[in-house]
């Protein structure tokens, strides 16, 4: 039996406390303990990006991080970003352009896109580059790039 630890973190805008096994990674904690199943697991070795969440404002692999390491952190999952409405434009664009098929990669890709769009107005090559930590087996990526590019342009227009 591994040791249990108390953690407190801000998850989707709410402060929560929990007791977790030392070995439980953050993705399992979110999915199994909190039943936040929008965060997906594709590899558990930090390659596919399906498990990405926002950690203190940056996208991060929740499979590579232990739940105990999230103590004191601010974490947003796709459920939280959806509820807050801050990526509604991006989500609508993904739907309108069919930038997802099975949808398993999508929450993780939305995290990467959220971070990217918060930093810059990326061009297609930069979007492709940023997405290189997210595998998608279904779409071939083209429509995902289209959707992120469209939102980059739209947000820039709205800001100017």
């Amino acid at each position: 039996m591994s040791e249990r630890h108390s953690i407190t973190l801000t998850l989707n805008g709410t402060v929560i406390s929990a007791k977790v096994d030392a070995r439980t990674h953050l993705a399992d904690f979110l999915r199994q303990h909190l039943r936040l199943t929008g965060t997906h697991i594709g590899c558990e070795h930090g390659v596919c990006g399906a498990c990405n969440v926002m950690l203190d404002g940056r996208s991060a692999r929740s499979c590579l991080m232990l739940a105990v390491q999230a103590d004191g952190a601010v974490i947003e999952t796709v459920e939280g970003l959806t509820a807050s409405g801050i990526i509604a434009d991006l989500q609508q664009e993904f739907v309108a352009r069919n930038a997802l098929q099975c949808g398993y990669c999508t929450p993780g890709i939305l995290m990467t896109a959220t971070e990217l769009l918060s930093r810059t107005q990326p061009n297609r090559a930069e979007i492709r580059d940023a997405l290189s930590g997210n595998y998608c087996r279904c779409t071939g990526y083209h429509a995902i790039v289209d959707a992120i590019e469209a939102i980059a342009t739209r947000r820039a227009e709205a800001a100017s």
Partner: protein
Amino acid sequence: MNSGDPRNVPRREAARLVAGKGRYTDDIDAGDVGHIAFVRSPYPHARIDRMNCDAARVAPGVIAVITADDLSAVCKPWETRLALLPTHLSPEQIPLARDEACWQGEAVVAIVAKTRAQAEDACERVEIDWTELPAIADLDSAAAEDAPPVKSGMPNNLGLDHGISTGDPDAAFRDAAAVVEHDFTFSRQTGVTLEPRTILASFDPRVRELVVQHSHQAPHQMREVFSAQLGLPLSAVRVVAPDVGGAFGMKLCAYPDEMAVAAIAVLLGRPVKFCADRLESFVSDNHAREARVRGRLAVDTDGKLLAMDVAVLSGFGAYASHPRGSAGEGLQAVHMIAAPYQLAHYRGRVRGYFQNKVPSGILRAVGQPLACTVTEQLLDLAARKIGLDPADFRRRNYTDADDKPARSAAGIVLSQLSLRRCHDRLLALMNYDGLRRRQTELRKEKCYRGIGFAAFIEQTGVGPQLYGPQNVRVSAQEACRLTVEADGRVRCATSVTDQGQGTRTGLLQILAQELGVAPDTIEIVTGDTQVTPLGGGAWASRGVALGGEATLRAARRLKSNVLTIAGSLLQADPASLQLQGGVVCNAAGLAQMSLADIATTVGFRSHLIPLDDIPDLEVVESFAPRNTPYIAANGIQAAHVEVDPELGTIRVLDFWVVDDCGRVINPMLVDEQIRGGVVQGIGAALYEQCIYGADGQLENGSLADYLVPMAGEMPDIRIAHVETPTAMTTLGARGVGEAGTVGAAAAIWTAVNDALVPLGATVTEQPFTPEHVLDRLALAGDQPRPT
């Protein structure tokens, strides 16, 4: 996106998926579920001398430790047999290996525990004494005269020996103006769905009912399999496929470890779940494609194809995949040769061998990419040899099946094709002449770009002629049950399943249009054997081609029933009435009554209807192509690549596809099917391979080591359509799900070899790793030659 095209209806479920509200199998709650982890064979081939599970049984959280003997009480062994291919004989299989494990990764012991972590901990406490047996890894060892058998007791490892001959190929080769030949190696690949295989099985011993939530493409097939192996009546087995995170053919077979999960549910009388982790996916998901091919092509002085001769060696793995077998890849590889072209003389032979590796099975486009690659590469070599432009050479040789039905030299049934139209469209789309000019200029600067084509035929909407004669219990029909609910909404339960292709949306569009109701009043139900009629699910590009036809027919019948009832209530001739937006209108176009009015009257006040027999507001229609084995679709793809001869790296610059899948219901969804398929084909050509050592150990079984295409490496993919509706159905749609994968690898082959022409080299082994490219360049002498 074809913005502004009203046919580009977004998928309803996409809104849920982007919000993290997917409901994949692992997301489903079940009370008191036992989590399963498997002890798997670490050896490619070994005898189990002794097993001790005592320590595992008392490990924390363990509910049960299950071995082959435990399951024999509830699960019968199975044999995968294809009636017409008696040599494709697979040894009897059981869910967990008993005395002998035949591939590295075969499940041996199942541990059921309160958590997956506890189950994994307990796996480490199982002690097994193994004696390693000789392992067959590569095709040559499998084929050797004195090869040891992959499993004790098998007479030899040959699992398929099939030949086909048309015309007089020997004479044609003798008289040819030019003959070219090439060797091809296709590495093993696997599906790598982002959601791993997952299954949750519950058995209620009180009523002896099994419910299986299954990340799978064909729930009706699995119901049949579970029923047969577990000895339960079909009506006591319910298989439900919830959201599925990618399938690609990999989630189409009955896996032994999944059979174990269902059997354990019956044995323990409680819900149990198995979710493969990525490492075990690589050693337990079906593999595919492994083959070596030698091909020859003869042409005459006018640039016409004369004859082809193709010999395929296909690798199967330890067992034939259940229930469809593993022969499809090799058979398609010889039968789809030259399918888009006129050819009089052909000889094809395929031999397939069992090996001590993961069983091979279905992967998107089954064997068609191999045939397409061999054909297109040989065409390019021949064009070069006789000094013809490769595009022009293809155009001279396309089959005439545009005008009249035809059969290819290897027996493929073709009709109403549009190869020349697709071809002309493609050349315009890619600005072919401009690209060639630029290629020539850049070569002077030692920049090596290549342009490659792949014309293709895609077998879509495959009907009962494939598995029916093989006595394989796989439904090839698709069916639709339409119900008008009392609130006037329409419920469509379809046998078709959707793993993100968008089939549901296609059916919804067909239904809304045919029936005359608003799309938002329609519910599409898929994937649940309890509520959907018997049918195939998702395989062989059938969703809209066949499922759409069934839906169209059901919609027309339901509409006629509705108007008959409305006519009697309104005392009007039904033929004068219309159903529009869910409202019955009279000849003058004035609204008379809603669908809800009619359904309410039928449901609760039928005494008011002045008809002797009231037609049903629930209808079922099914459709299977019975006069043709499949509905062939066609198209052409082109790749533009750049090869760095110093590093051996390949960059894909551009990619184009012109596809004809008949009537297009939703161009956006069709384009996305093609793009996804193309990228899987590019992955095959450039990155993906299961690397086995000579000892049968998989050396790259992790997602860090098995390369798949990533966004930064992939090009934009431009797509155009030619629409030739098929006359085989009222709807006119052909399938499209595999189109991209059929031709994309071939286009990369021809493009890379086109780039290498001035360097005098050709690639022969897929994937084209930098090492392979550099090896081939070294072999060619490394000296740039004049073009």
